């Protein structure tokens, strides 16, 4: 397990003019509805505790109004917490003064927005350069870096166009390039692909995963789309009404939902598509030569042909072709049975 990059501890956010006043009532268990009807204050986040592993993709999922966009804005303090701490690399960013906060945002975080939020008066090159120009870097150096990222996201030739001349998918690639150009450790993506149509969205997801292979950023990704969450997330945190109801990897969320809310969320998911062989693997044992061999990182769905021709189960190997264990046919049938429920 990697070290913790972002640590959120006992984080509360109450929206309203007198938020500090009601924090103790909320801590004593006052509900979101009660706070709203009694004091006309909105409970945004309710005692969030979350550790984000270094170089991982942490998805935060929830329906609209669940507080996920509020949560992500606490990482770079676009929203001030009412109480609690957010530490990045051990440094409590809720204590940063104004200047240090600007420096933190300039160097440590990049952000991608749901509706792109590009600067409409600047061309693509200047948009991608924005974070660099804010830091007053050398002009030719920052142009070079911006051009590198424009090429990386596949927009070479468009650097002199303006945002309104580009399609939605292209605009969000500009947004991604803009966020990556300052080479931040942390990438905050607020429903970054939600405004795109499904084909483009899948494309962008693949591109993000592809980039992440070499970049190893710590990515916090907000979404309301479970398929997207399962595809991208190393870990998935689920918010409901400002509360964190579950944080776990895809298998945990699917197989052991923490409550009815999460269960409802995941009930329509195609499990065999999401679950990987490694989650149902029996480690060790002997290689059965009569059985076909599959990779530990394959999804069950991808192994279906192998499963069909197998006698008693599957041999499982890792990336380096070492035998790591086996999966019995009964176990697979068991999973298939479950996913029908």
């Amino acid at each position: 397990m990697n070290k913790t990059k972002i640590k959120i501890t006992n984080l509360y956010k109450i929206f309203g003019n007198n938020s500090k006043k009601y924090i103790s009532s909320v801590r004593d268990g006052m509900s979101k509805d009660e706070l709203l009807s009694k004091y006309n204050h909105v409970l945004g986040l309710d005692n969030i505790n979350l550790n984000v592993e270094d170089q991982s993709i942490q998805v935060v999922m929830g329906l609209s109004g669940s507080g996920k966009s509020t949560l992500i804005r606490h990482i770079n303090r676009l929203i001030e917490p009412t109480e609690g701490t957010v530490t990045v690399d051990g440094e409590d960013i809720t204590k940063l003064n104004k200047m240090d906060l600007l420096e933190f945002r300039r160097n440590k975080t990049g952000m991608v927005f749901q509706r792109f939020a590009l600067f409409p008066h600047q061309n693509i090159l200047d948009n991608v350069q924005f974070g660099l120009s804010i830091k007053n870097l050398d002009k030719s150096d920052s142009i070079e870096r911006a051009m590198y990222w424009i090429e990386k996201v596949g927009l070479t030739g468009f650097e002199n166009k303006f945002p309104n001349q580009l399609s939605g998918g292209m605009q969000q690639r500009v947004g991604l390039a803009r966020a990556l150009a300052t080479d931040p450790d942390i990438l905050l993506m607020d429903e970054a692909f939600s405004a795109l149509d499904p084909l483009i969205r899948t494309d962008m997801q693949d591109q993000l995963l592809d980039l992440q292979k070499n970049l190893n950023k710590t990515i916090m990704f907000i979404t309301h789309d479970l398929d997207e969450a399962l595809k991208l997330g190393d870990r998935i945190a689920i918010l409901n009404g400002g509360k964190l109801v579950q944080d776990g990897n895809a298998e945990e969320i699917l197989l052991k939902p923490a409550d009815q809310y999460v269960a409802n969320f995941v009930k329509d998911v195609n499990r065999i598509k999401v679950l990987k062989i490694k989650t149902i693997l029996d480690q060790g044992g002997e290689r059965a030569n009569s059985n076909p061999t599959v990779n530990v990182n394959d999804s069950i769905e991808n192994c279906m042909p192998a499963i069909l021709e197998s006698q008693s189960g599957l041999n499982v190997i890792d990336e380096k072709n070492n035998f790591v264990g086996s999966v019995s046919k009964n176990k697979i049938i068991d999973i298939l049975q479950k996913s029908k429920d």
Partner: protein
Amino acid sequence: MNLSELFLTFPEMSKESLRMFRKSVDGAYRNFSREYGDTIEAVFDPVLYFLVWFEKLLQNSPWPLIILAILILVYLGSRSIYLTIGSLIALLLIGYFGMWEDTMSTVSIIGVCTFMSIGLGIPIGIAMSNSDRARAAITPILDVMQTMPSFVYLIPVVMLLGIGKIPGLLAVIIYAIPPIIRLTDLGIREVDKEVLEAADAFGANKAQKLFRVQLPLALPTIFAGINQTIMMALAMVVIASMIGVKGLGQPVLKAITNQYFTMGLLNGLAIVALAIIFDRVSQSFGKRLQQHRSGSRE
């Protein structure tokens, strides 16, 4: 006094106290202007020098040169060959009917007023957009400036500074500056919150946000304000001529008092021609600024 009488005649203050009230305010102001009039006039001296210099420059330069300069500006502003030709014809006619010198006076005072309004108005507008309290304080002042009949504030200005160019300049600016202040404020407030949030997320400080995001995005709106300011300044030309500002207003004034219909009409048309040129150029320039700023969606 019975009740019906109380409702029929307003219980006003006595004539005597009203007279005393007016007298004391007038007296206090007269003392003030006697005391500080010269100092305040001295403050405006640099503006006066500039105004005189600019007027002389326009009047003493060869007229073909001025026309050429104006036409170049018109073309750069509007990129329209028709407007440029139209302006040429209008300017030639103005000269032919003997109004060249007055027109140059008017152009110079409008020019100086517009520059001063921009110079003062944009910072005030920025301050207003920055704080709701400043906005609440400034808005009623702007309302007064725009609705108070200009003759009313001409009285204290003339009392303080006498008759001449500076009081005229002040009167024009008081009348013409509100739109640029209001529209600067509006333009900055209208900047997309998400775009501002993006600027924040990349660590832009206040000045960087203002100069790289807010002002550029507000520019088309600010330009609409500049356009309005120019139009309103032109509308004040006749009134300003009553306190000694030279230009197209003076012949109009003479025409009113002597019932010279043609003289009034010609000078009036010259003002209209100037207004149309200024308006079309600044509008199409503003429109061109807007090209890429209309939001980031298709």
